[in-house]
């Protein structure tokens, strides 16, 4: 990838991370850890990969995105705001009564949200349904979904994995956020769902493993996925939970809580420092 483009994407991703922190801090609750881990992938999706138009969020031929790990709504909202679906100022209404930004994504309320999610496993299946519908009608749109590694402990994830391979949904790409942590601890200690690569391969998927914070690898993976015919692709994205905020990185306790004022200031200072380095 061109250095300038890479720098530009890194700047956007950093803004997305700031949006995550602003939203979660303002709400006083929410899920920052798994939001920050996917900021780079989400940025690449909405600024490079997806064929979408913020001015026409329901366009029939658009690519679809389903955040199957719906609890990381803050990163979806921050990315959508950054892309121009709604004002960034609105991120501060996250989780508040009468806000368009519900605690978990609501397709009926938020511009740019293609599927209601939050209950783990369900979004992955819905993405399969969208991809199947596109195939039936010979539509050219593609369907993207982001799953959590903890989410893969849900049996429905594997029902969906079986379904997507069975119906050869090569218009479907799943990203698995392998940050290694879930609410109760490391995924390998709580209920080990690994190895994801071998499992997905055995289920009939094309498997690509990348560093979730390297735009070259992200780009190469999405490009490779487009070339694969006859099977869906999963991108296993090794990430750092809480990426970008010093005290949140690889710290389980920041899965689902908001920083208080002092730590909020530290988070913003951390991210502003990154912004400086990207100038």
């Amino acid at each position, binding site marked *: 990838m061109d250095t300038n483009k890479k720098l530009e994407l890194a700047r956007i991703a950093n803004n997305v991370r700031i949006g995550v922190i602003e939203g979660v801090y303002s709400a006083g609750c929410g899920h920052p850890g798994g939001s920050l881990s996917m900021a780079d992938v989400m940025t690449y999706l909405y600024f490079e990969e997806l064929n979408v138009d913020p001015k026409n969020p329901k366009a029939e031929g658009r690519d679809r995105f389903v955040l199957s790990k719906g609890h990381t709504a803050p990163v979806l909202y921050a990315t959508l705001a950054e892309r121009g679906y709604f004002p960034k100022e609105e991120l501060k209404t996250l989780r508040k009564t009468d806000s368009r930004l519900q605690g978990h994504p609501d397709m*009926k309320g938020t511009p740019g949200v*293609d*599927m209601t999610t939050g*209950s783990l496993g*369900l979004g992955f*299946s819905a993405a399969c*349904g969208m991809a199947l519908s596109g195939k039936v009608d010979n539509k050219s749109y593609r369907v993207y979904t982001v799953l959590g590694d903890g989410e893969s402990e849900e049996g*429905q994830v594997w029902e*969906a994995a079986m379904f997507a391979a*069975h119906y050869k949904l090569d218009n479907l790409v799943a990203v698995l956020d392998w940050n290694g942590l879930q609410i109760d601890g490391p995924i390998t200690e709580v209920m080990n769902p690994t190895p994801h690569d071998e499992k997905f391969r055995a289920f009939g998927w094309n498997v690509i493993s990348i560093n979730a914070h390297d735009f070259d690898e992200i780009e190469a993976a999405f490009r490779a996925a487009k070339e694969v015919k006859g099977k869906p692709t999963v991108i296993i994205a090794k990430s750092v939970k809480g990426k970008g905020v010093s005290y949140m990185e690889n710290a389980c306790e920041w899965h689902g809580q908001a920083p208080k004022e002092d730590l909020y200031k530290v988070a913003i200072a951390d991210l502003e420092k990154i912004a400086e380095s990207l100038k």
Partner: protein
Amino acid sequence: MADKKATRESYGAALAELGEKYDFLVLDADLAAATKTGMFKKKFPERFFDCGIAEGNMISVAAGIAATGKKVFATSFAMFAAGRAYEQIRNSIGYPHLNVNIVGTHASITVGEDGATHQCNEDLALMRTIPGMSVICPADATEAYAAVEAALNHDGPCYLRFGRFAVPNLTPELVPDYKFELGKGVTYREGTDVTIVATGYMAHLAVEAADMLAAEGISAGVINIHTIKPLDTELILNAAKKTGAIVTAEEHTIVGGLGAAVCEALSESYPVPVLRVGVEDKYGKSGKVPELLELYGLTAANIAAKAKAAIALKR
């Protein structure tokens, strides 16, 4: 006596015929031969997708299909559609109010020999708790066919319940100018002493019960409620005002289904005695259908007895 046909047969026939007129997909979970979606599969193989024995995934897949603007039927036995996949229905379909028709066949006691694990007595109650869900339980073949087309034309999620066991196709005889309207009850017979409000398999038994009561000089009205939600409260309220006593009859637990819905409606507007015929907070069991119906009190004789008891409760 009217011809007998299971409502699931009507479902399969309706899908196969309406498939020519409407653009929709059909999903099943390895039960196409039993649920009768196989009739559609045979005619439109490119629009039929077997999801295998994975009902939760099937329901969320249906939601994804609907989110792209396509109508879809997701079919399994009532136990595994409404029961196993309840949470998927609530969160993937109900909450975003998507156009999915969820179909549960082989509901309740008339499943017969398969027994309790397959006799879903709770589906109507479960589906009724979901905001925006239409809950439809047709009485016979004619009504079942019409319900499928009505669901296709309805904006919003529907749950449709069909039975395994053949039932007399009474509607065309009782209501010559019959027209299915979602949310509107069907008056089978006018009465003055008591009104029997029935749904699904019990509707024809309600008519039998009214005949038994007539022989004893009791005038019983009969209303067929094919749509449990939204309930035709106006029709039921008028019946309560006219006859002052109600008996409900459903092949379903008396908890949370038609009987409960009628009680809720009347207690808030015009309380009269309501006695409920249904499965009395029990599990089913294996057996021949007629024997089981006897055993669980799902009979015309029990409806008639409850009708007399309801009349006795009038002040």
